[in-house]
Structures are given as structure tokens and as C-alpha cells.
């Protein structure tokens, strides 16, 4: 009797074990761009067709909150397998050894010619590559309202190509009311809203004027690069625009919200504006031109990459999913579903045919160079803290035609940059 029972129990256990369903492996994808969620969802569904035992789950929330969640969960091992994040966070994770180096499969994929050398260099830290550039977060261009150009007697097919022309055009495009207040700004500058974004936009002018926030000192260290004529010129440009020529005003609407409501004629922004215009003012007659030049003619172009966690990198499926997300098959879906431009090379003919404004973003003219944020941990703090200084300076009417005042203000910012670098032990001579 006992024997029968024990055999029966054993058989039952075996039966249970055998029929235990093979659990679907889950790949968790996190992002700080809610607009990317449809793209990741699509990619997950497609991927499951060829990998039926894989389930992709997507989680998205607003950017700062996502970053906070990411940096809390990665060190404790409770994070996602795949995620996209900005370079300023990635560098800190890499420094702390929390992000894995690309396995050979991804490394060779990266260098297979699908990406420009610029993009490959961007994700190379100390000779090793991390992650794959998914999309271009920051390629900025000049958006301008063609109808307003015609109205002001400007040729809508000849947008300004230098910052000087930009200011001249802006003066013709601004409209005022009886008391002389700006109703429609000719050029909408980023002068509020703090954060590193403000500094980033300032750098559009700063860089092409010939300066950079920080410059390398040759020994792997950095120091400030704005305490010079170019730095002062850049600040003066904003001051003149706001207080001398009055082509913009703190009191009017700014940014994309202004552009889609016809309250500004021109502004400098990234490709996502195209999607905004489509949904909020589809009849707007506008064009996209390259960033104006000055002493230099470059535009900011910052890839935004996807990464794997250390655990995720161990899985074959996760690596394949990374490849899929950056494949030529996925590229058109990225734009269609989120409005962001893929970083890798892809066939953009049909996209440009349908929406010509994308032309500059996907086929930038060869004459224009690219620059990106220096990928060091200190940079984010520098950009954020300088933003506060800049905001204050922009509102300071006393700086008009005041070279000494401008020099003093710029020097103060330069010293601030240097002291932050020193604290990060990144300051060099």
C-alpha cells in the first residue's frame, strides 16, 4: 500500500512538473518619452511574432520622473532590461560600472555602416561602445512661417543663412501694437523655463559665434570656453534681440506654442515640431531651413541611445531586440508613431515626399557640421546652473550697448563653470 502511494505521488509530481507552463520571458522597456510608447509597443508585437516566448512590456512616464526611477532601480537590480536615456545620465551609470559594454554582436552591428561615424563616436567611451543610438534628440533647425515672410516682403524660399540675416529678418517680421509692445515676435528665443534646455538653445548662438561652454585642455580635462569675444557676442545677440531691436519679448508666447498659433515668425527647434504642427495647426505654411551660421556653421545633433541592463545583456533575446529596434524595418515606424527621427541611415524618400519639412533633418546639407554635448558627468550640472544665470542676464535691460556689463556677466558665468569643473575634478589648464 505504502509503495503504491509513494509511486502515485511521484508520478503526480512529475506530471505537474512537466505540464507546468513555460513562462513567457519578459523584456521590460522603460522610456522617459511617452510619445515613444506606441513605437516600443509596435516593436514588441512584431518581435513576438518571431519570438513567441517573449513578451515585451513598456513603461513610460515624463522625463525627469523616469530618470529618477531609472537611477533608483538600476543600482538595486530592479530595473528594466532595455531603456533609452540621455547621455548625461548614461555617463554616470557607465562610470559607476552599472552599464554593460556592448557584446561583440552589437559592437559590430554598430560599426557596420548603418550609423554615421559621428554617431558611433558618440557612444564610444574610452574606446568601448555602450548602447545603440536610436534617434536624434537634438538636431535643431530654423522653423519659419512662409506666409509671414511674404507679408513682410521677404522671399519665403530664401530664409536667413547667417545670424546677422536672422536678426534683420526678425526686425521686419515683428509686429507691434500702438504702445510699441510686441504682438508677434519675429524670432522666438528660449528665455524662460530654466533647466538645461535653456542653455542648450543658447548654445545654438554661442557655438556658431565661435565659443563653447567648455573646451578640452588636452589632458582629458576641461575649462570654460566662453570668456572671450565670441561668448560676449552671443550674449549680446540675445540682449539686442530682446531690448535693442525688440524682436522678442518676455511677455509674449514662446516656443512651439507660439509658432502653431501664429504668434511668432521664426524659431530654432528640433524635428518634433513637425508633429506638433500637424496636430495643432495643420494648415500652417512653414518651412525648415538649416541653422544659421556665424563664424562657424554647425548644428547641434545629439543621438539618444538605447541601452541594456547588465542582466539584460546576458540574454540573447534582449540583444536581438536591441538590433530590431534600430533596424531599417523599425525606422519608418519610429517617425510615424512618435515623430522622432531615427539616428541610423534609412530610406527617407517617402517620408520627405509626404512632409517636405523633414528634408533638413534626414538629409542635412554636407556643408553643415555637427556638434554634441561633451559627454562628461559635470556637463549637465553646468548647463543647468548656467541657465539660471542666463535667465537673469536676459532680463537685464542695462546690458544694452554696455560692453563692460556684458563682459562682467560672461566672466561670472565662466568662473561658475570652472568651479563646477573643479568640484568634479575635471578642471585642467
Amino acid at each position: 500500500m505504502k509503495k503504491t502511494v509513494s509511486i502515485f505521488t511521484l508520478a503526480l509530481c512529475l506530471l505537474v512538473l512537466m505540464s507546468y507552463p513555460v513562462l513567457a520571458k519578459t523584456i521590460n522597456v522603460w522610456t522617459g518619452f511617452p510619445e515613444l510608447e506606441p513605437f516600443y509597443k509596435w516593436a514588441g508585437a512584431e518581435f513576438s511574432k518571431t519570438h513567441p516566448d517573449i513578451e515585451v512590456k513598456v513603461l513610460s512616464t515624463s522625463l525627469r520622473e523616469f530618470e529618477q526611477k531609472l537611477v533608483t532601480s538600476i543600482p538595486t537590480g530592479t530595473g528594466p532590461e532595455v531603456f533609452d536615456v540621455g547621455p548625461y545620465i548614461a555617463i554616470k551609470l557607465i562610470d559607476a560600472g552599472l552599464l554593460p559594454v556592448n557584446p561583440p554582436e552589437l559592437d559590430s552591428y554598430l560599426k557596420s555602416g548603418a550609423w554615421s561615424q559621428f554617431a558611433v563616436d558618440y557612444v564610444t567611451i574610452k574606446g568601448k561602445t555602450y548602447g545603440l543610438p536610436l534617434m536624434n534628440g537634438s538636431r535643431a533647425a530654423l522653423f519659419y512661417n512662409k506666409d509671414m515672410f511674404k507679408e513682410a516682403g521677404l522671399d519665403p524660399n530664401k530664409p536667413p543663412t547667417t545670424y546677422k540675416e536672422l536678426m534683420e529678418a526678425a526686425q521686419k517680421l515683428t509686429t507691434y501694437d500702438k504702445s510699441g509692445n510686441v504682438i508677434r515676435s519675429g524670432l522666438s528665443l528660449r528665455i524662460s523655463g530654466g533647466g538645461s534646455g535653456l542653455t542648450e538653445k543658447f548654445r545654438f548662438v554661442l557655438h556658431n559665434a565661435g565659443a563653447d561652454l567648455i573646451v578640452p585642455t588636452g589632458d582629458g580635462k576641461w575649462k570654460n570656453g566662453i570668456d572671450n569675444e565670441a561668448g560676449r557676442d552671443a550674449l549680446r545677440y540675445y540682449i539686442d534681440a530682446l531690448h535693442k531691436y525688440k524682436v522678442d519679448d518676455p511677455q509674449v508666447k514662446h516656443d512651439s506654442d507660439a509658432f502653431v498659433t501664429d504668434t511668432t515668425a521664426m524659431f530654432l527647434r528640433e524635428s518634433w515640431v513637425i508633429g506638433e504642427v500637424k496636430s495643432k495647426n495643420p494648415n500652417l505654411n512653414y518651412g525648415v531651413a538649416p541653422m544659421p551660421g556665424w563664424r562657424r556653421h554647425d548644428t547641434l545633433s545629439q543621438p539618444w541611445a538605447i541601452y541594456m541592463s547588465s542582466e539584460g545583456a546576458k540574454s540573447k533575446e534582449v540583444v536581438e531586440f536591441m538590433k530590431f529596434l534600430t533596424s531599417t524595418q523599425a525606422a519608418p515606424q519610429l517617425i510615424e508613431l512618435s515623430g522622432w527621427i531615427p539616428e541610423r541611415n534609412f530610406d527617407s524618400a517617402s517620408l520627405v515626399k509626404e512632409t517636405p519639412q523633414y528634408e533638413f533633418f534626414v538629409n542635412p546639407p554636407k556643408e553643415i557640421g555637427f556638434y554634441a554635448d561633451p559627454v562628461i558627468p559635470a556637463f549637465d550640472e553646468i548647463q543647468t546652473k548656467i541657465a539660471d544665470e542666463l535667465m537673469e542676464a536676459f532680463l537685464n535691460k542695462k546690458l544694452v550697448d554696455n560692453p563692460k556689463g556684458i563682459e562682467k556677466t560672461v566672466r561670472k558665468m565662466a568662473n561658475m563653470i570652472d568651479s563646477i569643473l573643479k568640484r568634479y575634478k575635471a578642471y585642467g589648464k
Partner: protein
Amino acid sequence: MKSKIGKNKKRELLHAVLKHLGLLIGAFFMVIPFLWMLSTSFKPEVEVLIWPPKLLPNAPTYLNFVELFRQAPFFRFFVNSMFISIVSTIVILLTSLVGGFIFGKYRFPGQRFLFLLIIVTAIVPFESYVIPLYTTMVKWKWINTYQGMIAPYLVMSFGIFLMRQHISSTISDELMDAARIDGCSEFGILTRIVTPLCKSSGGALGIFAFTQAWIAFMWPLLIANEKELFNMEIGLTMFQFKFSTNYSLLMAGSIISVFPMIVIFILLRRQIIESISLTGLKG
């Protein structure tokens, strides 16, 4: 005599008119942002940014609300918010009632110290000890669980403080002694005498506890690793893209989010307003 009465009546009328006028102006200010939210939630996206802004939409649509539930599992978010808030409110009410009673009507060694400690834990900003708390949750494997999300919302220092203030000022020692003479145990005093007399402060506390849990954002976001655990507040962030915001959906979601709290408020309002007469003993 007659003229005096007439004068008094006039004064009363004037008072009433001024009072209502003042309240109305105040109410208008209170409500403006809310009216904006309401009107935007019924606007199609092309109308959202019209300047100067119009209060009434040209082409009002309820489609935003439909789209809301299509884009994200909003109903699930709603249920999660409800669950977390209700559990949190109940536990906070219980702990605050007991705590307030003990700290309010009893003397025991260490009382001052413990009460101060409890108040101090409310003074320290939550954001500053979030990380150590999170690490504890990782150790207990409470990440991505409901218990992990509710954990910090099970006690409320301000709740104990409120009940203590209320209880110590409305329940007299004589009342308690009378009960003891009648053979009531300490616990019985709590359940039979104190609890019924705390309806008004309990109602207020209930509203505050519910609100605190309902609009909780940072902690639930840290704990939830799957969308299924999101609450409504987190759900609303899904309409804030990196550079732009889908205002109409955001406002529609907000309206839905405010609604239950208004209901809770109306339900609990009666508790607060009804006065409980203690004249029986005070006389």
C-alpha cells in the same frame, strides 16, 4: 420702536448681501482654474491654444474622454488609485484615532518623547528619505507590489496630531471616569465613547488622508515597475511628451481624477458639519 426694527433689518440685509458678494468673488477665484480645465477637456486639440483663450469651445467634443481610455488603461489606473487611497485612509483613520486618544488622554513615561518623534517624522521631507525606504522595499521584495506602494501611507503624523487635539479638547476626564465607574474597560472607552464623538475630525482626516494617497506620485512611480500598478496621477504624465503636451487629454484625465474626491468630500462633509452636542456633561 418701528424705525429701530427697520434699521436692524436693513443692517442684516446689508450684511447678508456683503457676505454673499464676498463669498461669490472668492468662489469665482477658487473655481477659475478648474473651469479652464473643464473647458479644455471638451476642446478638440486644434482649439486648445487659441489666443486670446475662449472659455466655451467652438466644437465641444467628449471624444477626449474616450481617447483617454483608449490610449492607456485608465480604468485600471482609476481602480488602483481607489484601492490605494481607500486602504490608506482606513488604516490612517484607525491608527490616528487610537494614537490621538492615547496621546491625548493618558499620561505615561516617554509620552512627550514619542509624540515629538512622531511629529518630527512629518517634518522631515519625504523626498529626503525616499532612497533608504526604497532600499528597504527592495530587501523585502516589495518592489512592484501593492503593499510596497501603500507602505508609507499607512500612518500619518498629522492624523495623530489632529485627533489628539480634537480628543483632548472635546472629551473630558470626567466623562472617562464616569465610564470607568460604569465598568467600561479602557478599550471600551475607545470604541464606545471616543469613536462616535470623533465623527467631525475623523471626517476631515478621512478627506486629507484620501487626498494625500490619491495625488501621490513620486513614491508609487518608484515602486511600480509595470503599468498595471500605475495610479491616476502617474497616468496623467503620459500626456506630457518631452517638449509638448497633449492638453486636451491631460485635462480630461484631470477632470476624471478630481471627480471621486469631490464625491468623497460631499459624503464626508456631513460628518464635519453635524455638530455633536456634548452639553450633556459640560453643563
